């Protein structure tokens, strides 16, 4: 029976090419608009470190102004001071701990013909790579002894290694930055977490830094931060040393804790630390320390662009218009065929037989609309990519994956079936006697 109805459906669709294509187009365009924006949103709200979501925690301690919270209602600062970073890192109370910040260096390639260039770098303690599951192509990160000894070691991204060494295994070679020589200990494989969850400060949608070097080296070398620095009271006189001793926040800290009791212990440790600092006059605000999982942190930092949310709500309404359109057209089609339907009913077709027939017909329209909708989604994403062509990272935000493709088809079929319900019901409730009598 199903195949027979399928055949009937196709015949009926072919019998009204204009009306049918209008319906397919309406569904396809509605799905295309919705899925284009939904895809961008899906990518932006992704959690790239989901497998470790239960064990990673972003650390916040509230050293802010006694009169004003860092952010309403009572949010602790997003980053921490150098004083706290140093103490918390050296305490080593978590299974792993990472303190890091974004900075920049001038890279001086060995080849004298290549001009030096400026490059963003990440100054970080060595457990960064293990903590965030960063994949290596060659070599590895550095261990804690390198941090302690302030060894000039560095890890390059795949792109940077390609640019400097043509993609060869460069482990063991030297790299000069700001006239200082660093030994390359590792080269990463391709790694572009979206969003850049470990530091969402300036722009959560940018590529990770291409060069990594030890935090301790950066501090001794008096590197400035390339990210946000916020101070609630000015740093005193005395250059970099005064800055390090100030209440300015500029360092991101993450810890890895294996289970709930470790998390509780770590929170207690933070509270005890803050209480002890209060005795020497720091931390004037009430106790407000926080550990957030990556998912909580991305949510708290509201990384999804508001424009995307506005567009998504408009796109859903757009799909609604397309559906109303389809319902109207299906209704028109059914009404036009009311004499056929009456005849079939009079000859003994049951309501459920008619119902399945028209639902299958609507289903076909839904599937075709969905397939075209995927095509339009792809076009829509290319359109967005083009509008943002100057923003290089856009290519990572307009990628379709299988989950979105299947969602598109499912949405199309569900939409078409929902649109078909009312017209089909009307068709089934046509009374054969009245319609036939008019003839």
């Amino acid at each position, binding site marked *: 029976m199903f195949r027979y109805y399928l055949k009937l459906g196709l015949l009926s669709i072919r019998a009204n090419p204009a009306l049918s294509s209008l319906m397919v187009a309406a569904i396809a365009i509605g799905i295309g608009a919705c899925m284009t924006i939904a895809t961008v949103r899906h990518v932006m709200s992704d959690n790239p470190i989901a497998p470790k979501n239960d064990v990673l925690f972003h650390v916040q301690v509230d050293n802010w102004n006694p009169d004003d919270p860092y952010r309403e209602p009572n949010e602790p600062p997003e980053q921490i001071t150098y004083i706290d970073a140093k103490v918390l890192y050296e305490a080593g109370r978590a299974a792993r701990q990472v303190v890091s910040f974004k900075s920049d260096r001038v890279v001086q390639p060995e080849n004298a013909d290549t001009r030096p260039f*400026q490059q963003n770098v990440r100054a970080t303690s060595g457990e960064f790579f293990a903590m965030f599951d960063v994949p290596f192509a060659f070599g590895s990160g550095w261990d804690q002894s390198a941090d302690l000894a302030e060894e000039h070691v560095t890890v390059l991204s795949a792109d940077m290694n390609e640019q400097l060494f043509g993609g060869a295994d460069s482990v063991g070679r030297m790299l000069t930055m700001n006239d200082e020589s660093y030994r390359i200990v590792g080269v990463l494989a391709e790694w572009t977490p979206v969003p850049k969850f470990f530091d969402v400060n300036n722009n959560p949608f940018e590529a990770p830094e291409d060069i990594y070097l030890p935090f301790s080296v950066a501090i001794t070398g008096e590197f400035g931060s390339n990210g946000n620095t916020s101070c609630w009271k000015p740093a005193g*006189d005395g250059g970099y040393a005064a800055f390090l001793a100030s209440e300015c926040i500029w360092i991101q800290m993450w810890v890895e804790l294996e289970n709930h009791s470790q998390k509780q212990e770590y929170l207690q440790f933070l509270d005890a630390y803050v209480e002890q600092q209060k005795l020497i006059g720091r931390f004037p605000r009430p106790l407000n320390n926080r550990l957030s999982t990556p998912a909580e942190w991305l949510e708290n930092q509201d990384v999804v662009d508001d424009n995307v949310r506005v567009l998504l709500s408009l796109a859903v309404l*757009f799909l609604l218009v397309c559906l109303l359109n389809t319902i*109207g*057209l299906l209704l028109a089609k059914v009404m*036009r065929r009311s004499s056929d339907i009456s005849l079939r009913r009079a000859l003994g077709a049951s309501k459920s037989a008619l119902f399945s027939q028209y639902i299958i017909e609507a289903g076909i329209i839904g599937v075709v609309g969905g397939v075209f909708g995927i095509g339009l989604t792809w076009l829509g994403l290319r359109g967005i990519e083009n509008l943002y062509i*100057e923003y290089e990272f856009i290519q990572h935000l307009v990628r379709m994956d299988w989950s979105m493709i299947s969602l598109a088809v499912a949405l199309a079929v569900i939409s078409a079936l929902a649109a078909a319900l009312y017209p089909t019901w009307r068709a089934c409730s046509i009374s054969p006697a009245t319609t036939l009598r008019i003839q």
Partner: protein
Amino acid sequence: MEFGPIWRAMLKNKAGFVLIALQIAVTMTIMVNAFAIMQERSNAMGRESGLDEANTFTFYSASFKPDMDIRALVEADLDMLRNLPGVRAAMATNSFPLRQGGWSQGLQLEPGTQSTDSVGAAIYFVDEHGVDTFATTIIDGQNFTPNQVSWKDPEDNTWPAYGIITEALAKELFPEEQGSVVGKTVYLGDTDPVNIVGVIDRLQAPWQDWSGIERSLLVPQRRTPEFQRYVVRTEPGYRDELMLQVEELLANSNRDRIVKGMTTIEQVRKMAYLGDSALIKILTFTVALLVIITGLGIVGLASFNVSRRTRQIGIRRALGATKPAIVRYFMVENFIISSLGVIVGAILAIALNIVMVEAFALEPLAWYVIPIAMIALWLVGQAAVAGPARKASNITPAIATRSI
């Protein structure tokens, strides 16, 4: 007009008409809100930065030798730039309007640490060429004199004693003041007094999303970090050739630093408003597509109605109805549907706008958008129904005599 009969005829086929009316209503909801957003964004994009945008470019220099004499380097660079033919003014500064990154700090009227109300302002570190390079006009007081300009000692965090503020900042700091604010003192940080020597008409802060965008303060101080940002204002028409020339000259001047980021302010503006202009384009496209779909929906349903009523139309024609009367019938019918649609649409549009203003901190929509959208949708409806209506009017009266 035959409103009565048309209305009663419509009641016989409520579902079809309700669907069209709803479709028009939701279309209007989207249109109005999309338009409100586009208007807000294009107003934001239309604000003047204060700079002579067509004739200004910028670049930066990053030194990487540890013991570089930054002060000598900057002075040599500026000397070279200012003596180039076609350069009107040039300076080294920390930031400029539209750049998205800069320095902001609270200004207060009284010294002291906390609890005083402070007004946030963008701070630009400039010299006596700052006012001309930024293309602003002094409307009160005067420019910095060369001996007010100092080089900052890295170990010293004291602020300079002089400042030039924008008119908007002056109004924010001294809302009651009727006369001149020149000579007044404000405090930067807790204790550092800044004597206002001049007021300029306009200079935006570097962050275009900031509510205090018009509040800027120029201070006569030059700094010595390895990273120096230059702004060059040229005579009209000289910009592009000067950019090439400057790049060439600086590349060869000193191998221990790199010169990069050579870009025009027009390009900087484009990047600053990339998201907004993309949003405007996406919304325009969406609204156009939406109107087409709704229009096609109306055409589809009207054609269907015409074909369903062929016999009745024939009978009316046979009984003496003129062709224009038939056309009018469909036009009036569509007008009634559209009116219902736009009235419901107006209510939905306002409701959605209230939700969006709440959720996304948008500006509320301007009242006149509603009547404009209503008229636009009425016109779309009438245009869409015109074709099927004409087809209906061409039905021959003879059809009445035939049976189907």
